[in-house]
């Protein structure tokens, strides 16, 4: 088996560096993905499972039984004494003793010392952590805010950036190059340093506590203009000349010819934009202060301050937040990594 696995084309055997490399990578996967896996498993645990220490990897939960006349009781296995080996429901605890009943014969109470019983556990995924998000919190609101901002901002980003890129790559006009440089220069002005004035502008425009307050500042990106311009430069000008011969308007040339041909670059920018908007934190936190306008990251941050005891909901919400990005990555992994490697941006 090991021989088969280590057989590589052209090389007879592994030397120590091959072993070290693979060992490093396997350890790396544990460190890089292990925490996410741990989060996912934890989010399926019931409240008691989450508080259990030491924690288990799989979501175990104590079995409950319905006992006639006594309601739902937690099931315990007696470990010592005359009832050893029997599985009984716990009625109440009295000091160092507990009263148990046999679910089959609920009339007779059995007394056992506290230390002589252990809970009966079974595997159960607590999906109610997820359904509870919708019933106990305005979770749908946050989800909708995040989806709305991400979708609208991405469509607008693609439109606005591709229009600029079209002009910067296919037209010659006085001031074209200064405009391009000016746009690239905005790379030097990250949102962190214009936080205060942008808050003023957003509030003057009536954009605070509105999804548009997150959307508008985001639709013009230097990265997007640069990426699309470089791609459009590679499109042959003859295509455009031919269309002009056919008396197509410039707008039509832009959106019927250039835009479809730029699909690969648009796709890369769309993925970036979705990631940026879905994950954005600091600017939304500044501009959205009312909880009904919160996005998922804001809701997560607010909850972790408030309900430290309700980890089960917090973990479920975290999983819902990372799920879309994970699914996109699973399907478009190659495009994303290639796009980032070629553009050198994130």
């Amino acid at each position: 088996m090991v021989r088969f696995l280590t057989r590589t084309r052209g090389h007879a055997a592994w030397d120590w560096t091959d072993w070290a490399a693979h060992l490093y990578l396997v350890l790396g996967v544990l460190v890089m993905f292990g925490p996410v896996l741990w989060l996912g498993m934890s989010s399926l645990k019931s409240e008691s499972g989450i508080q259990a220490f030491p924690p288990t990897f799989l979501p175990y939960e104590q079995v409950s039984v319905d006992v006639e006349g006594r309601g739902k009781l937690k099931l315990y296995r007696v470990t010592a004494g005359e009832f050893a080996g029997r599985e009984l429901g716990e009625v109440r605890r009295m000091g160092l003793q507990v009263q148990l009943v046999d679910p089959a014969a609920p009339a007779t109470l059995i007394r056992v010392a506290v230390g002589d019983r252990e809970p009966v556990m079974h595997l159960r995924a607590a999906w109610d952590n997820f359904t509870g998000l919708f019933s106990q919190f305005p979770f749908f609101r946050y989800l909708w805010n995040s989806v709305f901002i991400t979708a609208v901002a991405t469509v607008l980003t693609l439109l606005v950036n591709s229009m600029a890129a079209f002009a910067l790559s296919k037209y010659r006009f006085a001031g074209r190059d200064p405009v391009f440089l000016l746009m690239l220069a905005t790379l030097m002005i990250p949102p962190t340093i214009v936080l205060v004035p942008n808050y003023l502008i957003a509030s003057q425009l009536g954009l605070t506590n509105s999804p548009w307050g997150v959307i508008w500042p985001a639709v013009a990106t230097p990265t997007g203009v640069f990426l699309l311009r470089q791609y459009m430069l590679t499109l042959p000008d003859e295509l455009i000349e031919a269309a002009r011969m056919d008396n197509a308007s410039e707008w039509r040339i832009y959106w019927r010819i250039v835009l479809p041909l730029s699909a690969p670059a648009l796709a890369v920018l769309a993925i970036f934009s979705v990631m940026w908007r879905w994950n954005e934190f600091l600017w939304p936190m500044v501009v959205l202060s009312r909880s009904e306008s919160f996005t998922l990251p804001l809701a997560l941050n607010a909850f972790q301050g408030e309900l430290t005891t309700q980890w089960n909901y917090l973990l479920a919400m975290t999983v819902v937040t990372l799920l879309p990005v994970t699914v996109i990555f699973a399907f478009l992994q190659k495009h994303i990594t290639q796009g980032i490697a070629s553009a050198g941006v994130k």
Partner: protein
Amino acid sequence: MKLLAALFAFLMNLPERPMRWAQGRLAGGRLGWVFVAPNLAVFAVFTFLPIAIDFHYALSGGTNLLPAERPFVGGENFATLLDCVDHFDPNTCRRDLFWHGVWNTMRFVGFQVGLMLGFSLLTAIVLNRKIIGRGFFRAMFFYPVLLSPVVVGLIWKWILQREGVLNAGMMGVGAAPVNWLLDANWAFFWSVFVSIWAHMGFYTLILLAGLQAIPAEINEAAAMDATPPWRHFRRITWPLMLPSVLVVLVLGLIRAVQMFDEIYVLTGGGPGTATTFIVQYIYKTGFADQVRQYGLAAAASLLLAGVLLVLTMIQLRGMRRG
């Protein structure tokens, strides 16, 4: 879906008429301005104008948000920020939190960028070998890059909490549990660790692209001569990938200087001020404190912008050379 496509086509046809009109009026390439206008307008309103307002805020005082109602105070905000008896001891400063932020950020940048560069380089070199399941490993190392910083912060908060899995592991091997995020040194360590965890995949990818750009013949020639691995790295790999290392170094510095999101979620800047960085000072002073001191926040922003400007200049110079 079809309906959506039809709606989209309809919306995209709307600008046709006004654009045709503009086309008739604007000769030559001047129609280009019309296409550039929306993008430029957004930049003007949300990037260029704010820089100007930033200066206004930094040079005016009071707690009013409206620029017209803020009294001009000259360099007072900068003076307040920079006023220290001993700049190496934040407790002697008038704005001690700012200086805690400055020193923490410097310490953080040193550790984080250095270690991240090391790990990214190692990972890229390993991934550039003949590896079984290379695509899988590359994807795994990259995956955390895509996660929301809030998610990153919460994942690690859950692992590092007092009754978390790491402490369970510690007790499993017979060690005493540690309050990872309540001890200043450990909280700082985990800030560095978590930010490396979240971002190193991105830098690994850039370095890997740089490695793969090295012509195969050079490596083959070295293999023919039976060059020992270390010398191979010193004499061939390192010099040839130096340009991408520089790119990663400067990009990493620019990002590290602005670190905020995941650390804020993870530690809240604490315990005390152990993991409070400059951006958190800006956020706190401008938005989270009871009395919002926009002037101080803007002044701190401009100081940070100065640092970023220098770093970007270095990057541009490096790129021109590369």
